[in-house]
C-alpha cells in the first residue's frame, strides 16, 4: 500500500500571546514554536502503522518554506520513506482551494492507494483542503475518521458525528481520508531518530514543477482573500479573581459556599 500524507507545519498558539503584525493580515510569527499540525501527526502515524502491517511506502508532502523541513524530518524519523516540500513565493496567500490545487498537481502523478490528511489545520482551521483535494483527484473520501480498517479494495471507516455518535462507511480505494485526533497514539521520536533522518533527502519543488500557472496559486488562485486579523471582541468577560493563590482560593471557596455549592 503506497500512502501519501499531507502535513502542515503550524505554530503552537494555545499558550502563546498572539499579536497582529504590521500588515494586519497575519500574526507576529517571531518567538512562536512550530511543530507538525496536531491532526497531521495522527495521519502520519496511521500511515506508518499501515505500512508496518502491510508493506508499501509513505510519502509526506507539505507546501511551505524551508522551516517546514523540520516537520518533514519528523515524519521521516517516524517512518516516512520520502518527503516532498512544495515552495514558491507565488504560493503565498493560498487559501484551502489553492492549497489543494497545488497538492493535487503533484499527488496526481504519484502512485498511491491512499491519501491521508488531517481533519483540519490548527492555524486556519478550514477543515477543507483534504476534501477539495479528493474532488480534484476524483477519489472518494471521508472526513472525521476515527477508525480505519483496510480490506481488499475497500476501507471500513468510522466517522465521528456529534455527541459521541459514529457512523460506519464502506469506501472504495484509492481514497482520501481526513483523520481526527485520537485515531491512534502517535509514537515518540527521539532526537537521535530525528538526527538520523537528517541524512534523508527532502525533495523540493517549485511552481514550475506543478505545471500550474500563477493564476492558480496564491491569492490569485484562491476563493478567499484575508482582509484583516483582529483580536475577537469580548462579549462577556469573566470577573477576574486576583491575589496570591491562597487569597484566590479563599475567594473561590466563599463564592461556592455562598451559592450553596459546598
Amino acid at each position: 500500500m503506497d500512502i501519501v500524507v499531507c502535513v502542515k507545519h503550524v505554530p503552537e498558539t494555545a499558550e502563546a500571546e498572539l499579536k497582529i503584525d504590521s500588515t494586519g493580515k497575519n500574526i507576529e510569527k517571531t518567538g512562536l514554536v512550530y511543530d507538525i499540525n496536531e491532526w497531521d501527526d495522527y495521519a502520519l502515524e496511521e500511515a506508518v502503522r499501515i505500512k508496518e502491517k502491510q508493506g508499501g511506502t509513505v510519502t509526506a508532502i507539505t507546501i511551505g518554506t524551508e522551516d517546514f523541513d523540520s516537520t518533514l524530518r519528523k515524519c521521516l524519523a517516524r517512518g516516512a520513506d520520502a518527503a516532498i516540500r512544495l515552495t514558491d513565493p507565488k504560493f503565498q496567500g493560498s487559501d484551502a482551494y489553492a492549497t489543494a490545487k497545488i497538492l493535487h498537481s503533484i499527488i496526481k502523478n504519484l502512485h498511491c492507494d491512499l491519501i491521508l490528511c488531517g481533519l483540519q489545520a490548527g492555524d486556519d482551521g478550514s477543515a477543507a483542503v483534504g476534501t477539495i483535494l479528493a474532488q480534484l483527484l476524483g477519489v472518494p473520501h471521508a472526513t472525521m475518521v476515527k477508525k480505519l480498517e483496510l480490506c481488499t479494495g475497500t476501507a471500513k471507516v468510522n466517522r465521528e458525528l456529534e455527541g459521541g455518535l459514529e457512523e460506519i462507511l464502506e469506501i472504495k480505494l484509492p481514497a482520501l481520508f481526513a483523520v481526527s485526533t485520537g485515531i491512534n497514539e502517535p509514537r515518540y521520536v527521539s532526537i537521535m531518530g530525528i538526527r538520523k533522518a537528517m541524512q534523508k533527502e527532502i525533495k523540493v519543488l517549485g511552481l514550475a514543477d506543478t505545471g500550474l500557472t500563477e493564476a492558480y496559486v496564491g491569492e490569485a488562485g484562491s476563493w478567499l482573500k484575508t482582509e484583516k486579523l483582529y483580536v475577537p471582541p469580548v462579549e462577556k468577560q469573566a470577573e477576574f479573581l486576583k491575589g496570591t493563590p491562597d487569597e484566590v482560593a479563599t475567594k473561590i471557596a466563599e463564592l461556592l459556599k455562598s451559592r450553596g455549592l459546598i
Partner: protein
Amino acid sequence: MTAIFVLAEHRQGIIRDITYEMLTKAHEIAQKTNTELTAVILGKSAKEKAKPLTEYAQKVLIIEDQKLENFTSDAYQKVLSTLIKEHKPLLTLIGHTSYGIDLAPRLATELNIPLATDCIDLAFEGGTFTVTRQMYGGKVNTTATARKAQSYMATIRQAAFQPQKPQPPANGQIIEQPSPLTEEAATKRFIEYVLPPPGGVDITAADKLVGIGRGIKDQANMPQMEEFAKTIGAVLACSRPIVDKGWLSNDRQVGSSGKTVKPKLYIALGISGAFQHVLGMKNSDLIIAINKDPNAPIFSFSDYGVVEDLFKIVPALKNKINELKIQK
C-alpha cells in the same frame, strides 16, 4: 428572483438545531439582498419534516429518495449540484458539522463556487461576499472576502447564531423536485450508526463538574485532579485531548463530539476554550476558569476567571474547602 439556499440537516428523524440557526441568519441576508430564502431538505421521507421549515423560509425544496435515507456526502453532492446548477442561488449555507465538513468543500469544488468554511458571520458588503472566521483556536478573528462569482457557499459554525422564528411566520411554499439519483452510490456506502458504549459515567447528570484540559500537562497529575474533584464533590470531566491521550474515557468528554452539560458549577482547569469545547459547557450555571494565559478564549465564556498556574490554585483551593468542611 434568485435565492439563498439553506441545507436542512437532519439525522435519525430529527432536524438539527444548526438548520434553524442558519435559517435565522439567512433570513436577514435574504431581506438585505432581496432574495428568496429557500430551505432545502433531502431524505427518504423529507416531506414529513418540511412543516417547521415553512415557518422560516419562503420556499421549501424537497427531494425525496429512498437512496437518501442516511446522509452520505456523495449522494448529497449529486443532488445539490443539480439543484444549484438549476436554481443558481446567490448563496448556499451548510452547517459546519460532521455532515457539512464532508460535503461542502467537495461540492464547491465541483461547481467552482467560492467557499468559506466555519463562518461565524457573513454579509454582502457593497456586493462583496464577506465572512468572519476564527483562527488559532479562537484567539484571532479574521475577515475575508470571496472572489467575485455568481454564487457563493459557506459552512456555518454551530451556535454562531441564535435561532429566531420570523414574525409573522414565513408560511413557505412546499415544492417537490424529483431526485436526480439514478443508482446506488458505488464508491461510498453507509453501513450503520454506532452509539457510544453504554455504562460509564454520566457527566450530564452531575451537579458539579471539574473539567480538565491539556494544561494539566502529564498523566501523573491525574490523581491530584481526581482528588480535587472529590473534595468539592464534583465529577471529573475533560476536554478532548485528555480523551485522545487515553487519560480519561470518552464518556467524560465535554464538547461538540462529546457531551453537552449544564451543571450548577463547571470549573475549567487548563482548558483554552476552543469553540468545540465551549459548545458543550457554556450553559452551565456558574463557570470558573483557571488558566495561566490571560487571553485564553475560555475567559469570555466564564463568570469568574483566575489567571494563574492551576497547580498553585488547585492545592490551595482544596485546602480551603477542607477547612470549611471542618468548620461545619
